[in-house]
């Protein structure tokens, strides 16, 4: 996997999360502290300080960067109400195969992520921080472990940090799957009818945050909510990391202000041809056609199109690729990545993937399209986690955005690109 980062050249936003990396290309603690200053935690970090940290996060309007865009302050308040969090879980699982941002953060600015986790641990009296890096990302895990060792030198650390290596699967990063694994069970999502009940490890509450969310917390604690809101929009303040891939000259992780039009964001990676569509959010995300690319990259404007920022994944498709064939491949991959727990997902996703393969293969008659529409309805909302819903969303948007391709193939003309290499990347 590539961990390529570039300084945006044609945007006014200066990198925040990746600022120290762009300035010095060093990820060590001394560089980090010289750039950002020491972590602002008072010696007597009591109740008052904990409450004020929560207030800073609330004023900043930070939302989770893992995919759900849930208000970080609400999650924090829920934990404060439930007493103490025993464990802070850093989710760097990078379940989305087209996402590189957690790896980039832990390899370029690991201390920013660890600062965020330490702040939450001290504020919620958690004794330990578990940094979850998938078993396949050795370099990322080594970087995190090295940073932890640097921090524990010198001062007596009140919080114990550890790197753990859950299995690399699409659904392993889902937060209930992650806490299950940390609890000694398989890394499978749990059926949670009431999402306001905190997740737990060993019966003690655990707080799970995406690595990027934690890095933002480290900046907000230092520079304040006013600074955080200096870029982005009122509803969606701050920056976010996006991973650009597909038909682009410079794939990689970029930091952009929320609210930047999708077209300007993908321009950073230099699309190699005429852009036809962009897959937004992740493999369980939404295809946006070229007529929708002026949409701001932010939760509310994208939601109007049934799309989301998700994990910051943007896959560019140009005229050389077929959206139906790529979708058939993504659907088959997603079907293979399910947990195998819920029937509608276990049977429905392969069925949807096969229907798409039929369409790409020139055998998509009216019956196939009707069956697909029916299957979308049968699968949606019927899993313990959102995995099946994401696939349905992605597949549905593909039929809209690539309606021309679908029609052309349905007339008995198999897609010529079925045997060419995939534009979309898989792990």
């Amino acid at each position, binding site marked *: 996997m590539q961990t390529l980062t570039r300084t945006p050249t044609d945007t006014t936003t200066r990198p925040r999360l990746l600022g120290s990396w762009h300035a010095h290309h060093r990820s060590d603690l001394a560089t980090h502290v010289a750039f950002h200053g020491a972590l602002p935690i008072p010696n007597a970090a009591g109740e008052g300080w904990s409450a004020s940290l929560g207030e800073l996060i609330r004023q900043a309007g930070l939302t989770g960067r893992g995919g759900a865009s849930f208000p970080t302050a609400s999650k924090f308040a829920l934990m404060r109400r439930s007493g103490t969090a025993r464990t802070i879980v850093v989710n760097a699982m990078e379940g989305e195969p087209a996402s590189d941002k957690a790896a980039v953060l832990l390899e370029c600015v690991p201390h920013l992520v660890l600062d965020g986790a330490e702040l939450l641990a001290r504020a919620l009296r958690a004794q330990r921080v578990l940094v979850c890096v998938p078993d396949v990302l050795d370099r990322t895990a080594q970087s995190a472990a090295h940073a932890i060792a640097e921090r524990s030198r010198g001062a007596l650390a009140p919080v114990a940090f550890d790197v753990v290596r859950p299995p690399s699967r699409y659904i392993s990063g889902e937060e209930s799957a992650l806490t299950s694994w940390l609890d000694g069970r398989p890394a499978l999502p749990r059926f949670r009818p009431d999402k306001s009940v905190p997740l737990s490890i060993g019966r003690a509450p655990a707080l799970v945050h995406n690595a990027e969310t934690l890095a933002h917390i480290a900046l907000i604690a230092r520079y304040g909510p006013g600074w955080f809101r200096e870029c982005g929009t009122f509803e969606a303040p701050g920056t976010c990391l996006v991973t650009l891939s597909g038909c682009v000259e410079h794939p990689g992780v970029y930091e952009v202000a929320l609210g930047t039009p999708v077209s300007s964001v993908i321009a950073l990676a230099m699309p190699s041809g005429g852009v036809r569509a962009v897959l937004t959010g992740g493999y369980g995300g939404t295809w946006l056609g070229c007529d929708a690319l002026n949409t701001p990259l932010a939760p509310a404007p994208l939601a109007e199109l049934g799309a989301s920022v998700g994990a910051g994944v943007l896959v560019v498709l140009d005229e050389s690729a077929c959206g139906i064939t790529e979708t058939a491949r993504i659907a088959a991959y997603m079907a293979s990545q399910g947990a195998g727990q819920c029937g509608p997902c276990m*049977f429905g996703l392969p069925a949807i993937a096969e229907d798409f393969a039929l369409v790409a293969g020139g055998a998509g008659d009216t019956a196939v399209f009707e069956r697909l529409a029916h299957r979308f309805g049968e699968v949606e909302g019927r899993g313990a986690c959102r995995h099946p819903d994401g696939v349905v969303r992605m597949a549905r948007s593909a039929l809209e955005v690539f309606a021309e391709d679908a029609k052309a193939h349905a007339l008995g003309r198999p897609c010529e690109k079925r045997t060419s290499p995939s534009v979309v990347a898989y792990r």
Partner: protein
Amino acid sequence: MSGTTENASQETRIRVKVDPVACDAYGYCAELLPELVTLDEWGYPVVGSEPVPAHLVELAVRAARDCPRQAFLSEEIAH
């Protein structure tokens, strides 16, 4: 739990749910409650989220009790 069947009064408003992880598509729920449960093409139950009509409450509670995987759930709706 067994007392619930007898005590299921007209006022008890309940809703049914399926735990998708536990469900193994035995389909007993659909046999007992065809009014509330349909099966998808793979035999897994599809239920709505609206309250169970009063005359079906007793059957819904029984379906929950009899589900071999304890996947069919009936729960009281909080007021």
